[in-house]
């Protein structure tokens, strides 16, 4: 089992009731698997879209991106900066 940092922003932080946490998953794994675990641990996040935007270690990635212990996965609502 590996520990993965998880961060929630904007509306997703409201859904999770949390901005920064971690989940334990079998590593190596993928962003998609981390998100599946997140939906179990934070049931409010089941309201996120099926394939939310995600960042791995501060870069946007596809959901099949590989994740190892100590990585940071962030769940990003649709971007609206500027």
């Amino acid at each position: 089992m590996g520990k993965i940092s998880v961060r929630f922003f904007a509306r997703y932080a409201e859904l999770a009731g949390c901005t920064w946490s971690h989940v334990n998953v079998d590593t190596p794994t993928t962003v998609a698997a981390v998100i599946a675990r997140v939906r179990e641990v934070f049931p409010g996040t089941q309201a996120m879209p099926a394939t939310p935007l995600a960042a791995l270690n501060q870069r946007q990635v596809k959901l099949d991106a590989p994740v190892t212990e100590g990585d940071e996965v962030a769940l990003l609502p649709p971007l609206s900066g500027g």
Partner: protein
Amino acid sequence: MHLTRDPLDVGDLLAEVQSPERGGTCVFLGTVRNDAGVTSIDYSAYESMAVEEIERILAEARERWPRSRVMLQHRLGVIPVGEASIAIAAAAPHRDEAFAACRYAIEEVKKRLPVWKKELRGDGSEQWVEAHDHR
């Protein structure tokens, strides 16, 4: 420095990009609009990633327009209608490069910056903005 909670100052950005060999400067300002009862917008960000993303965007602009210099500041927190949430300044020897580099920066910001808006209305209601606007 790329992210601030203070009002943005165009003069500061100009001072950072202008120089005697750069004869053209293009600035973009995005300001909070009074859409449908909006009185202010609360901007939040994944701050550490936003800073890195801004630095990547500026580096890309410098690679594409090597004689240009581009600076960008995004304001966070509650910003009232009429005040700027983003300011970009691009200076270059010629105006084509200045316009192109400035435009590139704002388009990439809209696509890539992990920043979110919550509109605050005069009636006390709040709403997350979850679609790209076209400002």
